[in-house]
């Protein structure tokens, strides 16, 4: 892990400089996060960064109730899971058609998809809200799922098409020669091979939805429907100046799933999600 440093060699000097620079980067980036981890285990947490005088799980105990944590957690799970499943299924269908059929306007369609994937969703939330009022979908988890899925589909379709393109068509053709129908070819040949693509799209979508705040913030109204993001915001507004430890514990519980999923899937994500310098929406 650590190699001996010989400062007379330029390559070693460069490596030492890079190591020092990265240590500073790591310290700067981690500084705002330390507080949350310490305060979560400190029932008397204040704003300053301090080791708890007494480590305790009391904060977690206080917030692990149906109303404060469990229902919002389940709502977040429903939104993230529902959206991701919908996105994966629809992106598979579209990605297959765009990849395998030589469609007349296929290229145009892809350019429109790329265009739509880059538009800032924030800008259309006011009209989406009015539309949802008219069709009676305000304050509904299903409404949030449908809108979130629609806003993620353009990027997901483009990504999925790329994964489909990477699967040689010969494999499918071989199956057709053996008498398989196109549907059988898709199910038995394409789907198993595109599994990494499915995982990538699903995980990216899941993390994105788990962290999203603005869409449920605008579209949901009753507390029972709030996901973790909106709950944390509401909790912060009500008790922000008093219950720091509990807030930190809540934030920690909310943060862990995205961090864990990201690092478990890191390798495949970086391969898939950043292809062509094209991109994951932050």
């Amino acid at each position, binding site marked *: 892990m650590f190699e001996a440093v010989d400062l007379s060699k330029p390559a070693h000097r460069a490596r030492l*400089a890079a190591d020092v620079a990265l240590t500073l980067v790591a310290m700067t980036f981690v500084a705002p996060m330390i507080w949350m981890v310490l305060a979560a285990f400190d029932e008397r947490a204040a704003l300053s960064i301090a080791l708890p005088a007494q480590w305790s799980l009391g904060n977690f105990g206080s917030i692990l109730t149906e109303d404060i944590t469990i229902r919002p957690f389940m709502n977040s799970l429903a939104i993230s899971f529902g959206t991701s499943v919908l996105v994966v299924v629809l992106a598979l269908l579209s990605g297959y058609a765009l990849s395998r059929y030589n469609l007349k306007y296929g290229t145009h369609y892809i350019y429109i998809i790329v265009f739509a994937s880059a538009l800032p969703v924030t800008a259309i939330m006011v009209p989406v809200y009015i*539309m949802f009022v008219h069709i009676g979908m305000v304050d509904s988890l299903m409404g949030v799922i*449908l809108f979130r899925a629609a806003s993620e589909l353009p990027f997901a379709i483009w990504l999925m098409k790329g994964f489909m393109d990477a699967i040689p068509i010969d494999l499918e053709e071989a199956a057709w020669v053996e008498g398989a129908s196109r549907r059988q070819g898709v199910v038995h040949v394409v789907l198993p091979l595109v599994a990494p693509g499915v995982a990538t799209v699903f995980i990216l979508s899941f993390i994105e939805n788990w962290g999203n705040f603005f869409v449920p913030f605008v579209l949901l109204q009753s507390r029972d429907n709030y996901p973790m993001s909106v709950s944390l915001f509401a909790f912060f507004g009500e008790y922000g100046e008093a219950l720091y430890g509990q807030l930190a514990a809540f934030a920690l519980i909310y943060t862990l799933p995205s961090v864990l999923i990201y690092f478990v899937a890191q390798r495949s994500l970086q391969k898939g999600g950043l292809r062509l310098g094209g991109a994951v929406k932050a």
Partner: protein
Amino acid sequence: MSAEAVAATTPVRPWSRRLLGTIARVSPLAPATVMILGFFLVPIMWAIYASLTNQGLSGVNARNPRFIGIENYYYLFTDPRTWEAVGRTAAFVLLSVVGQNIFGFVIAYARNTASAFFRDLAGTIVVIAWVVPEVVAGFLWYTFLRGDDAGMNQIFGLVGLPAQEWLLTDPLAAVIVINVWRGCAFSMLVYSAALQDVPHEIIEAATIDGATPLQRVFRIILPIIRPIIAINVVLTTLNTLGVFGIIWITTAGGPGTRSETLPILMYTQAYDFGLIGYGSAIAVLLLIFGIIASLFYVYLFRVGEQRSV
């Protein structure tokens, strides 16, 4: 047997068969297309329409909005608050994008040179800052910056710097710092991938010819990865244009309106003041900026695709 399989085995294909074949080939695109049109195109049209009415959030104007022509736009363009928000949005986007791209590149470059331990340490921590949910990021920074006892002032105290209250004294600078912190990882990952593709031989040849490290970066590496820089700059611009949560949580656009960007102004007018029509006019303005940047993105995307073919 599916429709196009039938079509494929038929020697002469009458128009009805061809139509069936086309429908079979296009139909998988239908559900996604309907959703994208329904939730993107319709709202965009609706925003344009609503911006020409006095639609309210509640009361009479919510149920029976009246067509009022360009009145909303007249107020929007004559209100200095709008132009201040446009200026702040420009500063927020410009400085965030410059910061994320420069730091993202520098960190990626340093990670290429550093020992494995520091490469992984910095990479992991920078990425965590990006994966942390937006509300948590806002909450973390609020507690880090707020008051004399907060984390940043503790650290400043240790190194002998005077205590700061950036959320009150320099709110716009504070939210830019927060956004750079949060967005760096994305640029870092993009540039790490780009650096992998720079041929080693070219850099070695330049080193043998006596190029200094700075010359290698500015004369060789940056020109080679220029297309990726272009696309990443546009992409980070688009991602920054819509930032709402971290500003809303840390400053809510304040104190006063000192960190109010267009998304914040839009939300405040539409929901705090109940002026949905007026908020829609701001949405249209924001969309125009988004559409311009997005067209630019598609242009770079096309150029990139043609190059790689």
